[in-house]
């Protein structure tokens, strides 16, 4: 079946809408009805052996057993997951901000490499050592990156901070003495809206001297 055929099967209503939009902005638009939702999305997702599974995830050195759907992202497990004992995973340090791998708020380490938890399926996290921001400090002893973030006030609202902390730790694990350009590159996958960047750069420089 070609793309066109396939699409015709499911999207006639939407297409007829868009045709009616016309090219001029103020064209008198005569549009038939359109459907905003109405896709049979929920149907296909049950009863298939592999569409849900009980998996084990190693997060911050602790094994969590949890039932997930195939589509469940690692970020969903961390933030909203409930394990098979009925306990909330409740690791809300990784934030859901863009949900599309564009902002870095959900950065975690998978086998020591920074990745976006919103773009990783929970099933794919099996067998990896997952470290979230909650696992960066050694008990009450903060990581030098965390100490330096506090010292330099490398946060305002703080919503992006966990992602920046994790990315900074990953950067310094790879490169002990990064230049400013290397810091910018290493943190280029993280976004801050308050504009804390200059103090974040200072913090990473300070932390690099302590590692």
């Amino acid at each position, binding site marked *: 079946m070609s793309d066109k055929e396939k699409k015709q099967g499911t999207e006639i209503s939407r297409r007829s809408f868009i045709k009616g939009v016309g090219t001029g902005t*103020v064209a008198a638009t005569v549009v038939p*009805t359109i459907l*905003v*939702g109405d896709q049979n999305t929920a149907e296909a997702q049950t009863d298939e052996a592999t569409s849900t599974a009980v998996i084990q995830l190693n997060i911050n050195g602790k094994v969590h057993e949890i039932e997930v759907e195939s589509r469940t992202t690692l970020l969903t497990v961390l933030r909203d997951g409930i394990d098979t004992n009925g306990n909330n995973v409740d690791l809300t340090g990784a934030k859901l901000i*863009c949900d599309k791998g564009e902002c870095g708020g959900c950065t975690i380490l998978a086998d020591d490499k920074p990745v976006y938890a919103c773009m990783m399926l929970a099933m794919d996290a099996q067998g990896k050592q997952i470290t979230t921001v909650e696992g960066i400090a050694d008990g009450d002893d903060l990581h030098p990156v965390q100490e330096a973030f506090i010292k330099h*006030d490398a946060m305002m609202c703080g919503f992006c901070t966990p992602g920046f902390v994790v990315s900074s730790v990953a950067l310094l694990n790879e490169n002990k003495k990064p230049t400013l350009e290397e810091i910018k590159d290493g943190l280029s996958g993280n976004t801050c809206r308050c504009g804390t960047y200059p103090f974040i750069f200072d913090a990473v420089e300070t932390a690099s001297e302590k590692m």
Partner: protein
Amino acid sequence: MASWGEASQSRLIGKRITRLSGKDKVTGKAKYTYDINRPGMLYARILRSEVARAEVIALDLTPAEELPGVKAVIELTQVGNQLRYQGQEIAAVAAETDDIAKDALRLIHVELEELPFVVTEDDALAEGAPEIRDWTGNKSDPNVDERGDLEAGFEEAAVIVEAKYHTPVQTHVCLETHGNVAEWRGEEYLTFWASTQAVFGVRNDLARTFDLPANQVRVITEHMGGGFGSKFGPGVEGHTAARLSKMTGKPVKLMLTRRAEHLVAGNRPSMTQHVKAGATSDGRLIAYDMQGYGTGGIGSGAGFTGPYVYSVENSRTERFNVATNAGNQRAMRAPGHPQGAFAMDSLMDELAEKLGMNPLEFRRLNDSSEVRQAQYTLGAQEIGWHKRNTVPGSGTGIKKRGLGVGSGQWGGGGGRGTQARVTINADGTVEAVTGTQDIGTGVRTAIAIIVAEELGLQPTDISVTVGDSEPGLPSGGSGGSQTTPSVAPVIKTAAEAAKQKLFEHVAPLLQAPVDDLRVGIGTIYVASDRTKTVTWKQATGQLGMESISEGGNWDEDLRQGGVAGTQFAEVEVDTQTGHVGVIKIVAVQDCGLAINRLATESQINGGVIMGLGQTLLEERIMDPQTGRMLNANLEDYKVPGTYEIPEIKAIVFDTHRKVSGVGEPPCIPTLGAIANAVYNAIGVRIRELPITPDKVLTALAEKKA
């Protein structure tokens, strides 16, 4: 008269102090509204219109209701209603998981009949455009302001500049999207975690909406992930969360998606200005004639400043609002100012050039602010103003550098309406409580600094509670750069009162009159005989079973409004790629008494970076064909990232010992400074933001031709 004392006597105030919430924020322990997990909590989502304008023909919730895991589905519009912008609410779902809620939204059956729409200002103003609200031609009545004699002014002018300046709609992009968690206890008591800038504003709104006594609504905002002016009320999403929670008897979390955040959670309106202005041969701005408009969406205005900062005797301005089928504007960091400043600072440079005058000198001649006059000198020195191209665009090579300057003005003097309490317990612990909220500016830490300074303690000794309506100590919303100047006087007077009470308890022990007692560092001593001293704990031990708990009061003399700012920019323009890189920004920011110099510098950095984004990257892109916002994400709506960050020299220009707010003003002068620097680098002026490579390359090509 109350005073903050001399700088030399301040141990903490005005110093660089790390924030109290630092550890929680770097370890991920800080709980934002988005992070609240309540037992049995449901996840809610809102189905929104994806079209700009349509009538609702049919709406059937049944298929969604039947999906296992769905607990409630409600209509947010009705058949027959008109939806007037993309993102407008149609229905909402609460379900056991967020994924089920998403699935359920897609099962709701909606039929819409699309109606003619306008999503850009040009289309709204075009002849024959469909009228989308009760304004003739989609235009509001103009707001006209006349001063002096414009005609005479132009006659006196030696040079005249006519230009059109434009800034597009910018969105707030709060990283924590708008949203709430609602939890009812029976039908009488609502606990509401809100990502808000106004804890008490939200409480009062909910009490009205749900017909509850105000003391039966508790709003909690321990931490919140950015508001920038867009988060003052509970909004449709807040009311919806509370409704769904009441219906289901379960806690309900409803956070906006990133897409919805762009579409419906507010924006900075656009601005278009047609300006004609004249200056005398000796460099006096003498006449200013402006017609301008902007769009704030379907139902809101689009105010902006102009003329701005600089004095002009003769002026006429005419402003109107344009309605478009788009989400409404909300206050955004210094509403109206950055866009007005961009136009004005560009205009000033254009006039100066026609006069053959250094643009900084031209500003000096027309700026009545003594503070800014001093800032011009300091900033020019810091940036190396002498390095600018005397002839714009005269630099050689592919990458050309240039310098520019811009200015701004803000109020930020705070106001009445805050109540606070400082408590000293017998074990020596100290609590400070008020109903403000820390939206990232660090007011929690500022409170601790003030109390610790007053009591001779360390900021970390003070336990500060903000962001909770339960203690019943109201404070205003965090807007207008008012938070610290509103809260600081009340906290200080409360701490003073608590200290006095403690002195009364300690005086017998030290065998000295109360007014002879002073606080040291962790001690209380007798001023006339410093050998007589007790430790803080010994002193508070005198309280026995009691605690001291004192309120404060508003004190005009401890705060002051009106802050001036100036920024200088150095940019490098790659003339082959059109890319503008900002090398350095010098931001000289008047801020009154900086309670915490470190947090103040943070605020200045942040303002500069948001201004930089508005100048070089940000734009809500509306498609006239489909009526859609094409960049309702963080891929194509571009906010500054690490590579965009210049060296920023934040100069805290503390001119007096009274508290002023500084959240908004630093984002104002950046636009003009960068735009003027780009002109100085390449000799072509770009009058429309953002200054992206397409515009730079097109402008350079036109210059060549």
